[in-house]
Each structure stands twice: as structure tokens, then as C-alpha cells.
């Protein structure tokens, strides 16, 4: 009791008007009181339970004859599977790039003063975001029913499973990306446009040169998220034989009936891809989300560093 009282010095108890004198230090005798955090009992218990459950599961499956880990391992680096992984990566990257380009156009249309363009843009988002991706994949693959010939070519030979999948994924994704980009544009305060316009830019120039560069910071992190989603969405292409990872795994187990071991191959590969993308996204986020534009791009020479901040606020000379 008496030990804890030492901070209430006379100065603290009764003073109507305190003025700090040079050399005034808080009246503390001896070591400051140490505060100890409460142990996290709940966390410890949760940990034990989780480990126990995991151990049980592994123990039961390790001996499950239907798991056939040997088969999984055998097909993990099978050339056919690896090619499928390549196709999946290609699909995801190309679909993402195409969708971003489309989405920029759509976002600018929606934001523009041109009412007609704005309505068309909104309609686009409404349709491609509204129709399930799987349905869009099937629609594009069966385009030949509506248009047997495109530019004199046979539609079915022109649009392979891969192409149909790529088109479907790109269009469906562009609906989401358009909204993300539009959100980025909206997140930049209107004052930025005002300022750009006030020094003599047109509204479109201000949008392109002042607002868009600043919206990238907001657009990048969710785009990384969408890319991870896209890596997984490529598996939808398997319904039209898009020769992606899942398609090939299905082809193999269609022949040897080792269904589960091969599905595990797909699971592991998707997890690997998603993990790599996740690490990339983490770095992107760190770069674009947390940091201010200034802290990541130090200029060649800044004569007086942080110390100058306090000295110059005193007023203009």
C-alpha cells in the first residue's frame, strides 16, 4: 500500500497553478512500478485442443489405405499435371490482365459526365457481376450455337476450351475489378480534382494525371485478393475441358480411378499457388497500404531531415 503511494508527491496533491521549472522531474523514488500482463490461459487451452485434434486426424488418415500417399507423390510432378499447373497460371494471369484493362475503361465510363456512357458501364457491371462465373464459362463455350461462324471461321475451332475459359473469366472478373477501380477513384478527395483544374488542367487531365496515380494505392491490395480468387476460379474451366490443373487431374483419375490421391494433388498445387500469390500480395500491401507516398521514395538530397520539421513551423521569415 505505502509502496504504491510514492507517486503522489506534494506537487501533485495540492496545486492550483503549476508551472514547470527547468530541471523539474517527476517525483519518483526508487524503481517505477512494473505492470505485468495477465497470462493468456484461453490461448494455451485452445492450442492444446487444436494440436490434439490435428494429431488424431493425421493418425487416422496416415493409416487409411484409401489415401495412397504414394500415388499422390507420384503424380505431384507428373508432366501432365505440371503442364496443367502452367495452364492454370497462364489463365489466371491473362484473365486478370485483360480484366484490369477492361475494368479501367468501364470504371471511367461509369464515372464520366457522359450519362449514356455511365449507364452502359453500370449495365456492364450489373450483367457480368450478376451471372455466375460457371454459367459464363458454359455460355462462351457454347457460343457456336448462336453464332456458328465468326468472320468466316468455324466458331468451335476458333474458341477452344482455353479461349472460352479465358474470355469468360476475364469478363466476369472485369465486373468486380471495375467496381474496385471505381472505389479507388472515389477514394481520392474531390479537392485534388479542384486543385488540378484550378491550375489549368481539364477535368479529364486532372483525372488521368492527379487522381488515378493516387488511386493506385487503394486499388492494388484488393486486386491482389482478386488474383488469388482468380487462381482458384480457373478450376471452373474444367467443366469445358480447359486443360487446366483440375481438368488434367480429372482426366488421370478417370483412367486409373485413384480419385482421392489425385484430388489431393490438385489441392496441394492450388495451395502452393495461392501461398505464393499471398506472399506477393503481402509485400504489395505493405508497399501500397501502410506507407505514405513519401516514406518509400526518399529523394536524392533532403538537406535537413526530420529535425527541420520543428524549426520551420515557427513562421515564415
Amino acid at each position, binding site marked *: 500500500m505505502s509502496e504504491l503511494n510514492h507517486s503522489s508527491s506534494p506537487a501533485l496533491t495540492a496545486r492550483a497553478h503549476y508551472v514547470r521549472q527547468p530541471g523539474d522531474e517527476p517525483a519518483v523514488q526508487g524503481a517505477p512500478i512494473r505492470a505485468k500482463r495477465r497470462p493468456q490461459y484461453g490461448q494455451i487451452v485452445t492450442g492444446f485442443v487444436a494440436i490434439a485434434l490435428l494429431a488424431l486426424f493425421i493418425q487416422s488418415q496416415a493409416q487409411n489405405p484409401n489415401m495412397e500417399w504414394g500415388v499422390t507423390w507420384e503424380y505431384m510432378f507428373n508432366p501432365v499435371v505440371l503442364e496443367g499447373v502452367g495452364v492454370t497460371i497462364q489463365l489466371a494471369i491473362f484473365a486478370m490482365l485483360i480484366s484490369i484493362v477492361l475494368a479501367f475503361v468501364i470504371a471511367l465510363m461509369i464515372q464520366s459526365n457522359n450519362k449514356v456512357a455511365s449507364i452502359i458501364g453500370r449495365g456492364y457491371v450489373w450483367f457480368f457481376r450478376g451471372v455466375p462465373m460457371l454459367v459464363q464459362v458454359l455460355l462462351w463455350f457454347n457460343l457456336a450455337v448462336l453464332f456458328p461462324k465468326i468472320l468466316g471461321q468455324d466458331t468451335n475451332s476458333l474458341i477452344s476450351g482455353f479461349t472460352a475459359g479465358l474470355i469468360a473469366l476475364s469478363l466476369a472478373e472485369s465486373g468486380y475489378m471495375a467496381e474496385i477501380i471505381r472505389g479507388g477513384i472515389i477514394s481520392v478527395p474531390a479537392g485534388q480534382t479542384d*486543385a*488540378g483544374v484550378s491550375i*489549368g488542367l481539364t477535368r479529364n487531365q486532372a483525372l488521368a494525371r492527379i487522381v488515378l496515380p493516387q488511386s493506385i494505392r487503394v486499388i492494388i491490395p484488393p486486386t491482389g485478393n482478386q488474383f488469388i480468387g482468380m487462381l482458384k476460379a480457373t478450376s471452373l474451366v474444367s467443366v469445358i475441358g480447359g486443360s487446366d490443373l483440375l481438368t488434367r487431374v480429372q482426366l488421370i483419375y478417370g483412367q486409373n480411378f485413384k480419385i482421392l490421391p489425385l484430388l489431393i494433388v490438385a489441392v496441394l498445387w492450388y495451395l502452393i499457388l495461392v501461398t505464393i500469390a499471398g506472399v506477393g500480395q503481402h509485400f504489395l500491401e505493405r508497399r501500397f497500404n501502410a506507407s505514405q*507516398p513519401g516514406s518509400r521514395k526518399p*529523394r*536524392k538530397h533532403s538537406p535537413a531531415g526530420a529535425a527541420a520539421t520543428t524549426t520551420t513551423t515557427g513562421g515564415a521569415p
Partner: protein
Amino acid sequence: MTQTAPAGIATDTMLRIDGVHKWLGHLHVLRGVDIQVRTGEIVCILGPSGSGKSTLLRCINHLDPVDGGVIEVNGERIGHEVHGGQLYEQGERRVAKARQHIGMVFQHFNLFGHMTALDNVTYGPTRILGRPRKEAVAHARQLLAKVGLAEKESSYPSQLSGGQQQRVAIARALAMEPRLMMFDEPTSALDPELVGEVLQTMRQVAEEGMTMIVVTHEVGFAREVADRVVFMDQGRVLEDGPAREVLDNPQHERTAAFLRRVH
């Protein structure tokens, strides 16, 4: 205390606002505003919030288009032209060109967040006026020195205090060599301690003979620096006269009531 500008310049009109009306939705924000500002004159616009002061400034450089009336800067219509007694809005490019010579300083500074202080100041001269980069940088450094921020040229806006940002914003506007400078409540968003440095910078600009319109609540600044004070309420000019007269001896009871409360 720039009482009258030199006689030769004093006669011509820098800004003519004639019967300007503006609606925002159903709100009649400006109800026939007439103001004239001569070259080199410093005019402070006072008034309660919602009186239309800021909207008026935004109308002058056509950030918001007027719904009626005439605004001329240096004899040149901004944003509209007249054909057969009817006002027609000009194309974006022409308006943008006309705006180059009207500097504007905003309540929330609005520095370009992705550029350093120096780039903020050189952007207009290099990218809009097409000045050589070297020349623009030299001029920008002069301006930053003038507003007391020479050593802050490589800082980003987020690294500057509000007062510093506003001073960079003033330098950015001056870099375009404007004929007219408009200040829209330049100190309203600042910590009380930082107001002084911005007012000091504005005083400096005023002493160099710049024509200035300042929307402000700083009555002290108006008394000291302004040649004329305009008092606005509910979209109308209620009083317009020499700064001292309006501030010390307001004729309209609304002005008097406002000044009593602000003092």
C-alpha cells in the same frame, strides 16, 4: 495597409462580377451578386457560413458554373461567352486555359499527394505552361524560399504540417504567375498555432501588389491587409466598402451583428 494602388493601375478592373446567380439543386446560393475588384486591390469577403462566399470563388474560375450573370477577369469572360444575349458555356480546354491565370488556395490545401513540395510547385509551369524544367525548378525554389520552406522541397504533403502545406499551396498557385489570387478560407482548417505563418505569407503576397480576394473569418487580417471588405449573407452582398469603415462602422445591422460575434 495598401491604401490605394499606384494611380496608373488603379483605374482598370481586374475582376467584374455582375448579377451572378447560382443554384445548387433547389438552393439559390447566389442571388444577384455584384462585386468589382481593381488591379492590385485586396478584397476580403466576410460572412456567415452558407452565405455563398466559397461558392462565389468557385464560380469565378468556373469550378462551379454560374446560372446567370457575368464574371470577367481582366476583361475576359471565364467559362461563358455571349451570343445573342444568351450565355453559352465554353469548351473545357478554353476554360482550362482561362483558369491558368487565376490562382486558387483552398481551405484543405489540396496539395497533390503523390508529389513532393517542389513537384507540386513545378507541375503547372512545366506540364501546363510548357516551361523548361530547369527554369521552372529555379522559380519554384525561389517561391518555396519566399514562403519559408526552402528546405522542404523534397517532402511529401503527408510529411508537412497544415501550415506548411498551405504555404506550399500558395507557392504552387503563384508559380502559374496569376493575375488574381483567390483564397478560400485558407486558415480555417489549421491549428490555431499555425494560422499566423499562413497569414504572414499572404501579407507578403499582398505587399507585392497581387490582386487578391480572400474569403476569411480572420477579421484582424482583413483590418490590417484588406483595402475593401465585402460582407455577404444569404447569397447577397449586404455591405461593400473600405475595410476600416465596414469593420469599425458597419452600416447594415446584419454586418454589425456578425462582427460583434466574431470579435
